[in-house]
């Protein structure tokens, strides 16, 4: 008879009523196995040190300037208008104040005489009749339809016509969002003034950004936890013992739960520790309430920079929270994928190799597709976690060529999570029905 004879357990067969305490006790034991590995804590400490060092470098380079802007924002608010300019003008003279005046003035037009105080109401707005005049910015002038047509023309030129219609539709929505953000004066929020993109990149940008670094570190950490725990019994030749015990093959699910908890716990520790260090070294408290769609912020487009148009209204604090949340989900995807490989691969080294190849090859493919303007192929690869990591600096925006639907990075992570869960379920169920080595 073949491998799938009637002698093998059917789904749900043999499942006795099992006290929760047994599962809890075994779960605690499995957790202990991982947490007692010295490499775990050494790696976390090294990552925290690395992240703190990077934050220290950023603080050394521009921390003082950002601290000044944050302090000004805390005192004078974050909404740039004539009243805001006047309030800055009344601050003690310094190069930092002058820089800030020039930067704000470049957005809202002109530098207001610092001595012409008293022309403002309690909100700091200009007392001119008809309310404050709204300066024109790239956001307020944004024409989504026109941008969509430009992308359509480029995609046609690159022979990626399948994406033309969705890209047009997307930029109609982007245009609507730009209009909304302009009405809400989000573009007239200070953020970090002239250092906005630097601050934004410090936190969210590329592989140098703090959160991207944390995601990569958490991927490595989670993969180690998963493969360490799931390969433990094979490594020590204890698999026959544990598989023949009362808990038996269900130990696999317990190990997966423990490994996943450790992976997410590692991410939480890294995020909390690294952010705490970063925020201690660079004061962002005054600008956390500022919109990330400030005119000082931008993303790249084929025609230069374009406004940072997000699919929802985000303050810096809210954007940071959203980034952390999606990053957590991204870490979960890779942790579950590592668990699936740990269950399927008889050899831990093979599992590590497959995980590395499974991560690096799609990342390289995405890079090649981007470089060659193979955007259809690029979109087909977008369900892979590498896509989300590669675009982390522009999450929750239109993302130029890199997305064809709103919130694509979020959908990508959701699809990745679904695929990982399915793969893991198949792996675990398979293990429950096969002959064990």
């Amino acid at each position, binding site marked *: *008879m*073949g491998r799938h*004879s009637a*002698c*093998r*357990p059917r789904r749900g*067969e*043999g*499942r*006795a009523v*099992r*006290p929760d*305490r*047994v599962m809890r*006790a*075994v779960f605690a*034991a499995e957790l202990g196995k991982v947490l007692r590995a010295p490499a775990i804590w050494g790696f976390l400490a090294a990552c925290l040190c690395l992240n703190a060092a990077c934050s220290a470098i950023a603080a050394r380079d521009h921390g003082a300037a950002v601290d000044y802007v944050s302090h000004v924002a805390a005192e004078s608010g974050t909404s740039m208008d004539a009243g805001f300019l006047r309030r800055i003008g009344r601050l003690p003279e310094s190069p930092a104040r002058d820089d800030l005046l020039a930067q704000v003035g470049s957005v809202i037009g002109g530098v207001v005489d610092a001595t012409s105080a008293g022309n403002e109401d309690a909100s700091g707005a200009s007392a001119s009749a008809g309310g404050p005049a709204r300066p024109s910015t790239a956001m307020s002038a944004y024409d989504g339809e026109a941008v969509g047509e430009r992308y359509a023309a480029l995609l046609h030129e690159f022979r990626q016509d399948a994406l033309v219609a969705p890209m047009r539709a997307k930029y109609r929505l982007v245009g609507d969002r730009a209009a909304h953000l302009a009405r809400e004066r989000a573009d007239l929020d200070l953020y970090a003034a002239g250092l906005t993109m630097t601050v934004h990149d410090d936190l969210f940008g590329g592989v140098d950004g703090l959160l991207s670094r944390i995601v990569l570190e958490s991927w490595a950490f989670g993969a180690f936890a998963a493969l360490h725990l799931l390969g433990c*019994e094979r490594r*020590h*030749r*204890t*698999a*026959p*013992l*544990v*598989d*023949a*015990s*009362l*808990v*038996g093959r*269900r*130990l696999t699910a317990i190990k997966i739960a423990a490994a996943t908890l450790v992976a997410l716990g590692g991410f939480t520790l890294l995020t909390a520790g690294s952010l705490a260090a970063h925020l201690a070294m660079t004061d962002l408290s005054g600008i956390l309430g500022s919109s990330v769609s400030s005119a000082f912020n931008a993303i790249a487009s084929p025609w230069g920079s374009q406004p940072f148009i997000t699919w929802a209204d985000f303050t810096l604090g809210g954007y940071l929270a959203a980034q952390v949340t999606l990053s957590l989900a991204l870490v979960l995807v890779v942790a579950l994928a590592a668990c699936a490989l740990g269950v399927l691969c008889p050899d831990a080294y093979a599992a590590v190799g497959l995980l590395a190849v499974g991560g690096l090859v799609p990342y390289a493919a995405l890079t090649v597709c981007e470089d060659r303007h193979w955007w259809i192929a690029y979109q087909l690869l977008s369900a892979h976690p590498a896509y989300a990591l590669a675009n982390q600096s522009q999450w929750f925006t239109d993302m130029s060529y890199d997305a064809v639907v709103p919130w694509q990075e979020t959908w990508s992570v959701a699809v990745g999570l679904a695929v990982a869960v399915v793969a893991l379920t198949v792996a675990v169920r398979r293990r429950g*029905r096969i*002959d*064990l080595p």
Partner: protein
Amino acid sequence: MLTVEHVTKTLSGRTILRDVNLTFDRGVYGLLAPNGAGKTTLIRLLATLLFPDSGTIRLDGEDITAMGERYRARLGYLPQDFGYYPGYTPRRFLRYLAALQGLTRTRADERIDTLLDMVGLADVADRRLRTFSGGMIQRVGIAQALINDPDLLVLDEPTVGLDPRERVRFRNIIHELASTCIVILSTHIVSDLETIADRIVMLRDGTVLRDDTPAAIRAELDGRIWQVPVSTPLDAGRTLLGEVQVGGETRLRIHCAARPGLAPSDAGLPPDAVPVPPSLEDAFLLAYGD
């Protein structure tokens, strides 16, 4: 009662077990066969690590695959290649395995103290396993197989690495358990079974060659095992079983197919040939060749 009913198992394209039928009740059963004969495969089927390609294994009439955890809760298993966590102490390792067997911490600690004492490791309960000898590790293995007070004890090559004193201790443990347990020992060391097994199951070519008591197996060879001078020709009908030292002289131990009870000369043997009581090892060598 544990029954193996028409079980066939093929691995890597080779039929390891072919339509095997066996019944085990309380007592000690020895699975005796040379390496590669299917003992470990049968043991792993009993431990639910493998599934039969056809046939059924039942405990008290119920399919052990369907029983799942209810079966494994009554099973104690010592694999052939017993692994362990080098950084753990015996106490910690047994605690972990006790948790896998569903024991509470209190009950586990009681059992661990009892078992470590039983296997003579109480003094080293808190030393790391990486410092243990092979025999000590094997004793930890025996202890873990008993952690859940099993009704069915399946031991694959349990005496590997044990010195003679430890083997005696092991046999005593098995004797104690035999009245309340089904104990199945797989081994190719005949002497392990000679004194403790109630029944011997001999496997060859994936089938059951013999399933009988040690006395019955030996009785078949009564009168056919001889000690003869070294110069005795090994004609047809005679099989060499080994050499023995008798009073400084080397003599051969042979099996002679002649009818039992004959005088040496009638059996075609030298006059100084001496009939000797057969042993289980004689039966093993005759069944499996060299």
